[in-house]
Structure formats: C-alpha cells, structure tokens
C-alpha cells in the first residue's frame, strides 16, 4: 500500500474514519457525505462544510478517495450547480479495513473486560 506523506495514518481521526466509512461501497456527493457521517455516527461526528472539504482534499491527495462520475440514479447537475461525487480507491478501502480491524480488536478487549455486554450495539 502506498501512502503519500501527507496522508492520514493509523489510527484515523474520527472524521477521517467516518468519511471513509460512508464512502465504502457507495458513491456520494458532498452533502450526502455530510448527512451520512452524521447519521452513521449518530450525530457524534458532524464536520463543518469547510472542514469536510479539507478532509476530502487531503484524502484525494493521499489517493484514498477519488472523484467519480455521478451514479446512474442521480443527476449530475443539481439546482444549476454541478455536483461532484466521490468514492473510495483501493488504498482507501485498505486503510479503512485496517482501521476497522484495529477498532474491532479494541472493542473485543472492551468486551473481555466487561465494559460492553456481549453482542450489544453500544
């Protein structure tokens, strides 16, 4: 796996992780990313628009995320403005997987120490 110097390393920040996570297997535009991050983190992570695009720019520079054409179901132009869509690259996916694995093992430890009940969501 090749990572640019400026790209994020492990562990990922919460915003980075959630942005990668919402893009896993999907192609989304900026606003949709924002909404999905909020939804999937149950409101815990809610980046400002400026911060989100900075994260996206950094990830694109690091080759984790790339621009994509609009999915067939969505219009490319919305209210007269062009919409850009983003998706994970193979590197992005690998990094996300590594982070998810790291978190999963942390959760397993938490379970072992009876911090979390077995199989509970939170």
């Amino acid at each position, binding site marked *: 796996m090749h990572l640019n110097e400026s790209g994020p390393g492990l562990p990922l920040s919460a915003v980075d992780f959630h942005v990668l996570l919402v893009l896993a297997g999907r192609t989304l535009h900026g606003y949709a990313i924002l909404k999905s991050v909020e939804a999937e983190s149950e409101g815990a992570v809610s980046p400002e628009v400026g911060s989100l*695009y900075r994260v996206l720019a950094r990830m694109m520079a690091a080759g984790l995320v790339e621009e994509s054409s609009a999915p067939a179901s969505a219009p490319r132009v919305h209210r007269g403005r062009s919409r850009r869509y983003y998706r994970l690259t193979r590197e992005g996916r690998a990094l996300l997987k590594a982070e998810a694995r790291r978190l999963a093992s942390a959760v397993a430890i938490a379970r072992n120490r009876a911090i979390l009940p077995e199989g509970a969501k939170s």
Partner: protein
Amino acid sequence: MAAWADLVFRAALFFYPKRFRERFGESMLETLAERLGERRREGTAAGLAFVAGASANLVATGLCERLDERRSGIPSRRRKSGMGTWLGVSLKEARFTLRSLGKRPSFTLTAVATLALGVGANAAIFSVVRAVLLDPLPYEEPGKLVSVVSRWPDSQSRLTSMSHPDLVDIEAGTASIDVLAGYNTTNMTLTELGEPEVIEIARVTKGLLETFRAAPLIGRDLASFELGPEGPHVVVVGYGFWRSRLGGGNDVLGKTVTLDGVAHEIVGVAPREFRFPERAELWIPSRMKPEDCGRGCHSLAGVGRLADGGSVDSAQAELDRLAENLEAAYPDSNTNKRFTVRSLRDQIVGEARPGLVLLLGAVGLLVLIACANVSSLLLVRASTRTGEIAIRIAIGASRTRLVAQALLESLLLAFAGGALGLAVAAGSLDLLLRLAPALPRIENVAIDVEVLLFTLATLLLVTVLVGTAPAFVLLRAPVRSGLANAGSPGPGRHRFRNLLLVFETALASLLLVGAGLLLKSFSALYAVEPGFDARNVSRFTALLPEVRYNSLEKVRRFYRELEERVRMIPGVESAGSAWGPPLGRARATGKVLVTGRPEPEPGEEHEASIQSIGPGYLETMRIAVVRGRGLVASDDFGSEPAALVNETFVRENFPSEEPLGREVSMTIDLGYGSPAWRIVGVVADVRSRGLELEPSPEIFVPHGLYGPESMTVTVRSRPGAVILPEVRDILRDMDPAVAIHRIETMTEVVEREIAPTRFHLALVGAFAGLAALLAAVGIYGVVAYAAASRTREIGLRLALGAERASVSRLVLAQGLKPAALGLTLGLAAAYLGGQAIEAVLFGVHPRDPSVFFGTSVLLLAVALVATLLPARRAGRIDPVRAIRFE
C-alpha cells in the same frame, strides 16, 4: 439559498488558496446551500447561526489550507511585484502578528470581546434601522408615493383623515400630484372559510395597486366602474390571504369571499410585497359617492403618487393654495383646514424614527468607547515593547513597516471582534425583536448583505480608531532612550491614555444621562393615572354582520344578552360594552353644539369624541362618576337621551356654568342619528388617546340609543379566572356567524403603551451599563499600569519619608482626574444636545438636574472603585524591594 448567504460564503471561500477554491468551491457552495436549507427549517435564528458558524469555519480552514500549502512547498501565488509583494509581506506580517496575539490570550480575548460587544450591538441595531427606516418601500419609484392628510393648524385635534370631496379636488387641482386614492380600513366578518373570523379590509376610492403601480399577481385591480353605491361586490385579495385561505391556486378568479354575509367576487390577487395599508388583507371598492358624507366628514386617508417632475415641496405649495381656495368656497367645512403632504415612507415609519435614531446614536457611542478601551490596551502593549521596537529600528526596520504592523494588529483584532460580533448580533436579534414594540416593517429585519457591509465599514473605522494612537506612538518612539531603559514608558503614552480615558468617560456619562432620562420617563409613564383600573380587566370586540343586524334594536338586544350571559360566567365580577374604549383603535370625533347658544363661528368650535357605552361599562372600568349620576339600564331605547361628559369636556364647554341638565348635540353620526343629549353626569378624565397624551373632551352616550354594531365587551373578573372559552361557547350558542377579535387584557393594552419606552430604556440602559463597565476597566487599566510602572519612584518617596496615605492619594488622583474631566465634558455635551432625545421622553426635561447629578455620582463611584485597588496596592509597596527592583 438566500442571495446574501451565498455572497457571504463566496467571500469566505476567498480565504482558501485559488487551486483549492477552483477545485472544490462550487461543490462546497452546493453543500452549504443544502445545509442552510435544512437549518432554516428550524428557524431564522438557526439559519443565521449556521451562516455565521460555517463562514467562520471556512475562514479558519481556508487559512489552514494556505499555511499547509506553503509548508508543503506548493506555490499558492506567484510573487512578482506590487500587490503581490505587498500581500506576501502582509501574510508574513499577519502570521507574526497572529502569533504575537496568540501569545497574550488574555489581552487578545479582552480586546476581541470588547470590540465584539460594540460591533455586535451596532450590527443588530443597524439591521433594525435599515429594515424599518432606510429600506425604500417595495414599490415602483417609492419616492413618489405620498400621503395627504388634513390638518387644523390652530387646533389641538390630531384628526388626520380626509374628506372625499377634498380628495377629489386635490387630485384634479394639483399638477404635482398625479393620482390620489382615498382609503379606510374596517373589520368585517369572514365566513364560509372555516370558523367565522374578523379580518381587516381596506375600502378604497381607487384601485391601490394601480396607484402603487404594482402589477397584480393574478387578475386585475379594482376598476373605476366598480366604485360607488351601485357597484358590484368585488374584492382584490392579498397574497397572504390567497395562500393561506384560498390555497394559492391560479383558479381563484370568479370565486367568492363572503364578508359580513355578502359574497364578493375575486377579481385579482395582489403581489406578495404589496402590504398597504399595513394590516389589510382584502381591498374592496368604497360604496360611497364623494357627496354622500360631505366635506366635513373626514373618513378617508389619502395616498397617492407624485407626477413626473413633482416633488413633495411643490405639491405642498399647491396644496396650500388649494386649501385657501377651498376655505373661501366652503367656509362651513374648510375654515382653517389645511393639507399636509409627506412621503409615504415618512408616514409609515415617522413615529418610529426618533427612537431608532436614538438607539443608533447610543450604540455608536458604545462602539467608540470600546475602541477607546482597546486602543488604550494596545498603548500599554506598545509601551512594554519600547525596548524591542528600539532594537528593531536600530537594526534597520523601517518605521512605516512597524506602523503597518501596528495597524495590522488592530485590523486583526477588529475583524476577529467583528466576526464574533456578527454572531452576537445574529444570536441576539431574536431577543431584540421580542423586546421591540410594534414597529412598522419589523418583519424585514435580518442580518443581510447591507448589514454586513455596514459592519465592514464600522470595522475599518474601528481599525483606524484603535490603531492610530499606538501607531503614532511607534512613529515617535525615541531610539536611544528606548534602548537605554527598555520597558519603561515615556510620558507621551500616559498623556495619550489619559486623553482616551477622558474621551471614554465623557461618552459613558452621555449614555448614562440618556439611560437616566429614559428611566425617569419610564417611571413617569408607569405613574400616570390612566383614569381607569386596568387590573383583572380583559376585553374583546365582537362584530355583528351588518346585513342581519340592521337595526339598533337588534344590535342592542344582542349585546344586552351577551353582557348578561358573560356576567353569569363563574369568576366574572362585572361586564359592560363600549364603542371607542380607551387606548383602542376606534375613535370618532365631532363638533359640540350646545343647545341655547348661537352656533359657533367656523374655526371657533369645540370638538369632542363620542363613546357609546352599555350598562355596567363604567363600573367595570372603574371610571369614577364625579358629579350627577352614571348611565343606567333605563337610559335606553325610548327614554330621554341622557349623556355623561368628562371633566375636560366641562372645562372646555361650560367653564363657568353648571353642565348638569344642559343639552348638547354632536355633529357626528355613527349610523343611527344623533339626538340632543341631556347631560346627567360628569365622569373623571381618562387618558383615552394614549398614556402620554392629556385627556381630551369626551361624551358618553347610551348604546341603546346610539351605537354601532361593533362593540368592545369589557369584563372584570377575579384573578386567574378563565373566561375566553366560555365567551366563545356563549357566542356559538347565540349566533355562530359572529366572530370576536382584539382579545386582550387591559394590562396588555397599558403595557403596549409603555412598550416603546421600555424598549429604549432596556437598550440604552444596557449600553450605558456596558459603557460604565468599559470605562471602569479602562480607568483600572490605566491607573494600575501607571502605578506599577512607578513602583520604583513610589518606593523612593516612601523611603524618603512620604506617608503611605499621600502615596495612595497620588494614585487615586491619577484615575479620578481624567474621569472627572470626562464627566464634565460628557455632562456639558448632554446639556447642549438634549433635544436629540426629547422626542422619546415623557414627563422629564432633557436637562433634568437629578439625572445629571445621579450620573455624576454613579460615574465617580465607578471611577473610585476602579482606582481604589491600584491605589491601595501602591500604598502597601515595600520601599526596600521597590528600590532593589531592576
């Protein structure tokens, strides 16, 4: 997205490097727009908060992005010369300045918070002033719209309406006025669209849309052939009415709206921005012919449009001539009658102007005080840096560069304060609007582009004001002595800071005088005896459809039954109804004729307003009968017409005669004839027209003999009794087509009168409090710093035998002297500029000595408290340690 929000975001995007902006800018705007739309659904405040927060984030992340690019060596901009170089240097300087500000967080926070308070309050007040006073009316060529009113120069009467024949003559007889329409507003009961409801209707003598050159959204305006008594029942509906009650469909033309039981055909829909007269929802043609009511009958307001080339002044000149001609031709009705033309905007917002201008002035003073404070803080910083600056100059830094840096520092502080201030303004706007009395056009208040531009201009001014003094000190910084005793300030800085102190206390005392005067007005208003007892009284107005209640007998029977049944509601102590009750909107004024006296010459008549009251009304309002008797149930249909008059009426019409038993008649008819009334009692004066206005002559006549079909029922109940649902039940039972409106408690009515003064007091008081606080901080800062920098000298004095008390006195004087000087100047300014505030005062002279005295005591006390701490500290200096220091 609101255009202004888009503009703010676009501006904020400029903080990003160009490459970034080009790549992501459009998508970011798109995302921001979606986000804003989402927040706006939670309310205006949430939307404004989002714009403020998101733009702050854009600025911050944009700057970070720039720094990152530089660090990673990506060229963000090619530096050649001119602007580029300057920007490059400035960026470097900005980083340096930012770092140095960051190193002194308490200083930076104090300065930014001080400026944010000033700038934020300023932006909030300006947003109100702009929407209410400055914005042009939303019509074509709004400057040409005028209102015309009648006026009697030598009478106290505030009657301002026009008679129909006068209107017609003015339109025909002046070249400056192109069109002139008459209108009045009335309440009608709307049925067949849900529960019956009372709504406000304008009756017009000419289509108002055409007069305003507003194109109808659908259909057309009222046409001239529809006017007059034989005209068809047609209506133009307002945008809000069309949307909320007719569903906003395009197929409304030809449908009908039932008003007072009569179907009116819809011929047009007014455009959204058309709101005139302010609360009218529907416009119907006047059914009156000009000659119906005559020249003495002032029932219309005039609104028109100036002709091309006409001005308010030229129209006024023509009106003056015309009024004289009319006076000669119709002496009975037009003696002493003049006409006043003014721009429609003045008519709409005129009353709100003095208060708002006062607030804008007060908040401007606050900004100046904030500037003086921050400037003073910067001066301290500049003086602690004398050594560093001397070294930098000695090794070749140019003074201009140092000055530029000092200005840059104040620029950064100003803009940080401004950004925070705008957030404060956006956050406090809701509160401000809740506090505000009923101001016209207040629904348009928002933090928009114009407010942002105004704030930007304020910030540039703040930068200059704040930065000039420190920059000046830097320019004159002596290199050699600066190097010799780096750290100790020269005398120049003290003089500057003392000047700032004087300035600051002067402005603060001006604000305190203003607040004191308003406080006195407020308590004077509260102390006004209105002539009735407002506690536990509530009232509502019922409107009977004219078609079915077409005789006085039917109207009378309805209200007597309603009153009787309301009195049965548990908790109700008494009830009575009136037409034209105090502090309401209904009012009819006419001339008084005393039987047995020759008819007065034109211009010599006395006027009085007439109230029609039912049994139980005076008791319910606790209006005292001072002589004779009150009206009783037997003063009714079929009995001899009896009337009550108030004390002012007696003073005007029977100054030296016995009024009881005399007969008077009124030249005004509410629709059922106007007999001669026998005066049977005198009641105490009531401030009917407004708490701040002296009582005017009034005559009270029995509703059973003389009364319109829209009466206000007044109810006195035990505290906590809930009567409204019961009233609604009773009405539904009596006649489901009758709607009630203007449901209010008398306490609310009185509060509404006090609301403008309360609003001004709350704001000016808050500004004055802040000003006093800032002045205290300023005085403390200067004195404490001066005392600290004189530690060594004080130590020497003590060592040489000076008494500690005398040292404390020395320091005390240092703070109190400039404060006293500032106070004197401030009071002098308040004394000379008193008329600026006069218009919003009540019962207090703008040069009220107790207010001036109170301000002096308060301000000197503040100065004393601020000085005491450093003075005591100076008295406790240990001479040995002080001399050893350094």
